[in-house]
């Protein structure tokens, strides 16, 4: 039995959370779980906090379901998981910035999301703990820090120089800061500093109606809005015991796979563009545009925002729209096959993508990195299969996995996934079940909690909600990027600075999804 399963076995789960068990543990068990994670005994799925309590979600091979583990933070502190298991470090730094709870023993106590620009430190803490900047204690939370003021880790060595990049980058991309330490052309070390687009999403999910909360979650990262809405809707549905009509499930699947195709195609083009191969970028841009135009025609929104809601979906698929999607798929897939052929037959392009930005299987396993980052380095995890949900449940589809861990492997994962998504889409478009689009959302006064994972194009997104009296009391959204960003620091090591855009695009982590 895994150490984590052994630790949880004697405990009685709380009934409040569905569909996974949730356990309240003492500090010793919490720390033991941290040690077990550090020893590679399971995968950390999420780590978050609310005033007075820290939670983590964990998977282990011999646990039937993932589990949520909660610890009451005595004296507003808790034993750091990060001291044993590095993937927990950034989430713990975020917890301290937001809620003021102190991870005891954390080896990195620099702030993360708090750049010194908010009116008060620990904005999610109860009023007695929030520190207005003027009254800030112990140097933390002092007013008007220059946002550029951050203690980057020291790098020592002969002939090293630093290149600061961002937060405003040269392209049309999101803001974040990269500090390169290079030796000539070769990157010796990259350190990221994120948090620039932190919008306080958790604070906007306190005491609001289901629909409004859904609109906020859908905008945690716009490029994967459908997947985020699916995770949120499923968490609410689990909490309230809602049975979603089959037609709604299938339409959710249709939208999710359209979103995956649009993003994969667009990013394959953008990666080629970063290798100065503009021709494929133009073709991929055209394909992506056709996909989005079809999404618009079918569901009334190019990115299909706010179409998935608790209980079902808002838009039906007409027969005309179904025909249009079929035609679009035929056309898009044929065009994409041309693109793939050129990619595969152009050595000068592969010279840039092969053996560039390698991440090891050990790292993606330790970080439990989802999506093409994990699957490009041999971690065969896909929430659609491994935490299966309707309409994927029982469906036959491949989870393409490559071992090389380089930019090229991540490109191939995406190429193969486009083909698999098209197969799923054709199947569902043929067979769309008839029936209602949306089940009633019952009015339940009691406190209920729900949790769900959905597979976005970039990896698994996790949503936890606590509901009471028809409102969201509290929620947490964890984007796949949280466990992918740190691996980009490893991927670029030993590569040349000029290959960074290529590596970065092959990861395509979400800044907004991470910063929230």
């Amino acid at each position, binding site marked *: 039995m895994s150490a984590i399963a052994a630790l949880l076995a004697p405990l009685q789960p709380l009934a409040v959370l569905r569909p996974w068990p949730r356990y309240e543990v003492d500090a010793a068990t919490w720390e033991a779980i941290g040690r077990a994670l550090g020893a590679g005994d399971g995968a950390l799925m999420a780590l978050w906090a609310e005033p007075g309590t820290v939670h983590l979600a964990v998977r282990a091979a011999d646990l039937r379901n993932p589990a949520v583990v909660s610890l009451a933070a005595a004296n507003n502190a808790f034993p750091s998981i990060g001291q044993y298991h590095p993937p927990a470090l950034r989430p713990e730094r975020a917890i301290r910035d937001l809620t003021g709870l102190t991870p005891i023993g954390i080896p990195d106590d620099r702030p993360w999301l708090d750049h010194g620009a908010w009116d008060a430190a620990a904005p999610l803490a109860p009023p007695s703990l929030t520190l207005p900047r003027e009254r800030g204690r112990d140097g933390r939370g002092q007013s008007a820090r220059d946002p550029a003021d951050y203690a980057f880790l020291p790098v020592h060595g002969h002939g090293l120089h630093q290149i600061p990049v961002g937060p405003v980058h040269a392209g049309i991309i999101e803001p974040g800061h990269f500090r390169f330490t290079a030796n000539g052309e070769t990157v010796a070390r990259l350190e990221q500093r994120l948090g620039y687009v932190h*919008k306080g999403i958790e604070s906007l999910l306190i005491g609001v109606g289901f629909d409004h909360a859904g609109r906020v979650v859908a905008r945690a990262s716009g490029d994967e809005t459908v997947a985020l809405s699916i995770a949120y809707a499923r968490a609410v549905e689990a909490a309230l015991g809602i049975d979603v009509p089959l037609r709604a499930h299938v339409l959710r699947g249709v939208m999710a796979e359209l979103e995956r195709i649009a993003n994969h195609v667009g990013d394959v083009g953008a990666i080629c563009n970063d290798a100065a191969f503009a021709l494929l970028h133009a073709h991929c841009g055209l394909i992506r545009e056709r996909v989005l135009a079809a999404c618009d025609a079918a569901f009334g929104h190019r990115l299909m925002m706010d179409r998935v809601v608790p209980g079902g979906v808002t838009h039906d698929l007409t027969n005309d729209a179904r025909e249009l999607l079929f035609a679009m798929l035929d056309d898009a897939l044929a065009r994409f096959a041309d693109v793939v052929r050129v990619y595969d037959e152009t050595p000068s392009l592969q010279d840039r993508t092969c053996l560039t930005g390698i991440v090891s299987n050990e790292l993606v396993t330790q970080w439990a990195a989802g999506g093409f980052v994990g699957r490009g380095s041999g971690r065969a995890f896909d929430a659609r299969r491994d935490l299966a949900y309707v309409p994927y449940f029982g469906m036959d589809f491949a989870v393409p996995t490559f071992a090389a861990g380089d930019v090229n492997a991540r490109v191939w994962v995406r190429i193969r996934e486009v083909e698999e998504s098209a197969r799923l889409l054709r199947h569902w478009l043929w067979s769309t079940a008839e029936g209602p689009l949306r089940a009633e959302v019952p009015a339940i006064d009691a406190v209920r909690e729900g949790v769900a994972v959905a597979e976005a194009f970039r990896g698994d997104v996790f949503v936890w909600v606590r509901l009471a009296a028809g409102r969201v009391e509290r929620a947490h959204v964890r984007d796949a990027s949280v466990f992918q960003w740190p691996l980009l620091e490893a991927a670029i090591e030993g590569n040349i600075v000029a290959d960074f855009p290529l590596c970065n695009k092959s990861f395509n982590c979400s800044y907004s999804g991470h910063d929230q």
Partner: protein
Amino acid sequence: MRTLLLKSLFSGPATTAAPGLGADALEELGRTLQARAGKLFGRSLSIREVDAGSCNGCELEIHALNNPVYDVERFGLRFVASPRHADVLLVTGPVTRNMRVALERTYAAAPEPKWVVAVGDCGCGCGVFEGSYAVIGGVDKVLPVDLHIPGCPPRPAALLQGLITLLDRVATR
């Protein structure tokens, strides 16, 4: 590769027809530009996009402006890498507190004459992020805005129309 090149060569252009000038944009620019002395020399605009806190949905649609369907460059609109080269700052997102200084510095780095276009419901107001401790609000809370292009996110066609209308108003004739 040769097949793809030949196909591309012989298939017709994928571009959409040019949109006309936008009525709303004309009206707003009539107001905002009155007080401004600056005129652009020539008929092109260099645009620097700044994400000041967006969810990245607006970026996806701004990106689409560069694809072969919208192809902004045919109108003399060009995205540039540095604010030093920019005539226009195209700003998305509710401005987060953590991005405020970077946005102000980007604006300061752009040479006069310069114009600011706020993009998306978030850039125009604050969108769904209204009321958070971490956001300041729409772009006009931080910079003088000449044109608002609302939408969540605005369609590429709306972005294109807004930018073309701006170009029409500020260019010397």
